[in-house]
């Protein structure tokens, strides 16, 4: 097994754990945590493909990952802000109770 395949396997596991968390948890904060796990699985993939790709000397992959992490941080801030506002409004963080957008 090549080192790349190992990294990819770890990233896939990490993604699956995040997805499972995001789909099964009813608490909005835990869903956000799941999403962060999936994002980091994607970042791990980016780094692994860069390190074992055709041009490991260029810093493009690492830069890509750093940008992705920065965007994820901003996204997490927005998500947590929304959750806090919803909690203030509805006194809950249960996602099943937040169905006012239904058609």
């Amino acid at each position, binding site marked *: 097994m090549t080192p790349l395949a190992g990294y990819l396997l770890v990233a896939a596991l990490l993604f699956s754990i995040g997805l499972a968390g995001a*789909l099964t948890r009813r608490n909005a904060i835990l869903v956000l945590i799941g999403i962060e796990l999936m994002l980091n699985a994607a970042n791990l993939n980016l780094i692994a493909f860069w390190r074992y790709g055709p041009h490991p000397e260029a810093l493009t992959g690492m830069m890509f990952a750093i940008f992705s992490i920065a965007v994820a941080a901003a996204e997490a801030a927005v998500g947590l802000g929304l959750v806090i506002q919803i909690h203030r409004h509805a006194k809950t963080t249960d996602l099943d109770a937040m169905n006012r957008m239904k058609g």
Partner: protein
Amino acid sequence: MLWLIPAMPIIASGIISLLKQQRRILSVALAIGSLSFSLLLSLIAFAHVMIERSFLINIDSNQSVREVVNFTWIQFGTSNVDLGWVLDPLSAIMLVMVSFVGLLIFIYSVGYMKHDENYARFFCFMSLFAGAMLGVVIANSLLLLFMCWEIVGLTSYLLIGFWYQKPAAAAAAKKAFLTTRIGDIFFLLGIVWLFAQTGTLLFYNHGAGSIESTSLSVLLTQPAALGLTAAGAIGLLIFAGAAGKSGQFPLHVWLPDAMEGPTPVSALIHAATMVAAGVYLIARVYPLMAAGALAGGTTTALTVVTWVGAFTAVFAALIAVAQNDIKRILAYSTVSQLGYMMAGLGMGGVAVGIFHLITHAFFKALLFLGAGSVIHGCNEEQNVRRMGGLKSDMPLTFLTYAIGMLALCGFPLLFSGFWSKDGILEVAQHWSVAKAPFYMLVFGALLTAFYMTRQVAYVFFGHWRGGKSAHESPTVMLVPLGILAFFAITLGFIGTPAWPWFRAFLDGKAAGFAWSGFMEPGLLALMATSTVVVFLGIGLAWKLYGDRSPKPTAPDELEKAAPLAWSWLRDKFYVDELYGMTVIAFYGWWARVSNWLDRRVWGGVVAGVALLFSLGARVNRFLDTNVVDGGFDKGCEELTVGGGLLSRVQTGRVQTYLRILALAVVALAAILIWSSRA
């Protein structure tokens, strides 16, 4: 200044029409004042012509007095329509005659119409008439003449139907209007033709007018149908118009019926002036009528004028013999005398015809006003057989009426009618084409003397046969009678053979007095003949009717002698009935056919089209409600249902979306893997 003469009465008429009906004195003052002013101007114009004429005679010029004022009325393209007025001896003498006789009749009307409630309306129409008639006289353009001619026709209609409450008056007005219209259509055709040929409608325009030599030579070279030149054909068309207005056979039928109007109207319009318009028109376009005269001095147009005139003269005189209405007798007499004028124009030229026109205007106005006085005095009785013995009840009316009657009969030497009628008989005697008109006119003179004597005998002699006794008329009515009687006697002396001033005046020559004028060959014999004829007529009538006072219901003396002939004369040779059976019946039939076509054929087509459209509309409405609207409604319904269905997917639960997303990704991945394997 000349235009003021017709303008004054027309303006007065306009003002009167704005007044209330109760403003009697003001309206009368306006009408009489304006016409007096016109008379004054006419006299000035007449004096002007006299002075110019004597000046021209002194320098021995061959020209005649003629002053024209022309202006362009309408300009379209390269052609102009010019109007204008003319002052020459013919128009000058007509101006004086029309305004003078008109003024006397206006004054007379003040008395005659005193009890009528529509006093102001009467004077409004009369003024309009007088103005339009003066316009006819001074017009130097055939178009201007035609316009005034039509106004005259209109006022004639209005005044005949003045008592429109009477059905007979309304019918007579309609008849007069329609009958003259027949002539006017021919007249208008003549005008248009003349304009097409010569490019101008002015009579005189310093050598370029339509009846001056340049235009006439053009007209003579243009052939028309039936061997006539354009000049002859246009002349005949214009004569048709004149025949309509002047009541010549066969368009005479309206004139006797026109007596339904008030008597001053009959005097002014249907005796003295309007009916003279036709004669005046022929005199005005005489150069056209006489253009291309052969050695004998006559043309086709003039020959037609002569025959129609002579026939009308006898025809109407015959009818007049058997009438019982005092005004109808005079009306047929007018038709007959107009025939004399036409014949005089046709055979002897302007001077002969117009001289009779002028003298006739005076004595016929006198007779009509006298008849009006009689009717007024006899409490609106018009049947001569219910009168009688009025010479003692109404002495002044009798006196003036007798003068008028003698003038009309042509009583020798002393009365104007004798001289003017003799002038016509003289030219008839020398006419080169045929002798028949001469004998017809002599016979007409006999009849004239006969029917006038019959009338006077019925009205003034014998004893009173009516109801309430008669009374003499007021002074305001008698004064005009006196003045007219004076002229009925004296006017003849300006045209005797010894002193032919009138003819010389119209021709622009000097007139000298010479007894030798009577010495022309055949003239004295002719005068003797006409004297004998007149005495014969008067004597015959006096023998039959004088001092007899028959009962109103008893048959007439002539009726006893020849009942069949009498019924023909009494019923006016059945001309009205003939027209009723032919022309009017045809129009009635034609109207019925048109009605049927309108209702059945055209109406059916219209109804069919309407039905078609309403059917189309029904189909349209069906399509609209069921197809278009239904489809739209259905579509909307479907959209609502569809939206409802789709909205179920939108649960609002974020994790459901995520699950679907994850499943979709898995499915996508499976497809990718499966496809790369293949």
